[in-house]
Structures are given as structure tokens and as C-alpha cells.
């Protein structure tokens, strides 16, 4: 039986380097991720966590792959919701590529693909949860990079 998976693609008018920076800078993350900060040095093998503003840990894991500015893979488990923590570890891949270039329609853009998959058979609840979260976070990231402002506050 195949493990639960969520895939989300968005196109952002920015450069791969700026997008990578936005995905791996704690203070920038806080702007588009509803106040959550990420802690990591973003090197392969290093620990990684997401923390609430009050310091509580939201999610933990480690960086599995970090190939700037193309590919970031995170080992990821929720910590603060028992039913999501019980869903076990997941693997989140962030792939950055140049979008197909339509010269007459707005210039170059970057294609960001998020693939978030469960590693355990019981991973469904976590993938369902992130399926709701990613469109919000990435819509805010896209708005921030393109317009200087996020789309909305929760």
C-alpha cells in the first residue's frame, strides 16, 4: 500500500537564490509562517525544528539533504499534537527549478515543488494536516517575495 503523500506546486516571480534564502532564514520564515520560527544551520545531517513564538516546539527532525539553491529535504515529525506525533516521521522535499520561460508573459519565475510524504503506514493524519497548512504558508511566501507583504495573517 502506498504511503500518504501531498504534493504542492507554486510559481513565484523571484530567483532560486532568493527563494532558498526565504526557505532557510529563521527571521524570514517567521514572517510567512504565522509567527513560527525554524531552528537549524540547514546543513545535511543537522538537527531542525519549528518553534512557536512562546518557545514551545512545534515540529522536530533533521536536514537530510541541503543542495542550495535546488533541493532541501527535511525529516519531520510533529511534536505538539499527540495524534500527529503518533503519525510518525515524514519526509518533506522542497525542489526549486526555473519555470518554463514565456518571454511575452512576465519574465522568469521559479517553480517550487513541495512533496511531503509519510514514512510510516499510520502517517495519514500528519499528511492531512500539512495538506491544509502548506497552501497557507506558501501563499504567504509567494506574496511576500512578489509584493513585499504576506497575503494574510491567521
Amino acid at each position: 500500500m502506498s504511503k500518504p503523500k501531498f504534493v504542492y506546486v507554486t510559481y513565484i516571480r523571484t530567483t532560486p537564490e532568493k527563494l532558498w534564502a526565504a526557505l532557510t532564514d529563521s527571521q524570514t520564515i517567521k514572517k510567512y509562517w504565522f509567527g513560527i520560527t525554524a531552528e537549524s544551520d540547514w546543513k545535511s545531517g543537522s538537527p531542525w525544528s519549528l518553534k512557536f513564538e512562546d518557545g514551545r516546539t512545534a515540529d522536530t527532525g533533521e536536514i537530510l539533504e541541503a543542495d542550495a539553491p535546488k533541493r532541501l529535504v527535511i525529516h519531520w515529525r510533529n511534536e505538539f499534537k499527540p495524534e500527529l506525533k503518533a503519525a510518525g516521521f515524514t519526509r518533506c522535499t522542497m525542489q526549486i527549478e526555473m519555470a518554463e520561460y514565456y518571454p511575452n508573459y512576465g519574465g522568469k519565475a521559479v517553480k517550487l515543488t513541495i512533496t511531503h510524504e509519510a514514512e510510516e503506514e499510520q502517517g495519514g493524519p500528519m499528511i492531512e494536516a500539512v495538506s491544509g497548512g502548506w497552501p497557507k504558508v506558501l501563499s504567504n511566501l509567494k506574496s511576500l517575495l512578489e509584493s513585499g507583504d504576506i497575503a494574510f495573517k491567521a
Partner: protein
Amino acid sequence: MSKPTFAYVTYIAAAPEKVWEALTKPDLSEKYWFGYRVAAEGKAGDLMTAVSPAGKEMHRDPIIESDPPRRLIYGWKPMYKDMPDELPSRVTFELAPFKGRRG
């Protein structure tokens, strides 16, 4: 067996009415739909039409539901020469205002 479905959610800092206009008016769709002029301004039973940048008609599909600015449903069977046997599908747009405020 359930039919294949693709669902995509995005959050946009604009009023539902503005997004509805962009989805239904060809002068606006042309700007983001790679030059395609897509019109869906009618009510259920009227047509959604789409014209390519080269001026060729690509869609003449029924509007199934039109409830501005909340819900728009139209059929989808593109008139591409190399897709003559494409079966019709349907596209549903649901627009919901969100509680948050900007930045």
C-alpha cells in the same frame, strides 16, 4: 471507483469580487492565462469560452453553476486538434473570504 480529481488551494490578498472578475473576464484572464481570453460572465446554461493568443477558439463549454462571487463551475473539453477524444471534465472554483488581515 472514484473519478480522478485534482484539487488546488491558494490564498490571495484580494476581495472575492476581484478574484471572480479575474476568473470570468477575458481582459483580465489574458494577463495571467498566457494570453488566453477566457470568458465566463454568464449564468448556468450560458457558455464559458476561451480564445488562444493566436485567435483560435479553444473552449465552448457550459457554465454549470454561477453564484458570484462564491462558486463557479464550468465544463471542460478543450478544442485542441491533437485531443479530439478528450472526455469532458469539470472545473469548480470556490472562493471563500478569510478572516485574516494583511501583513
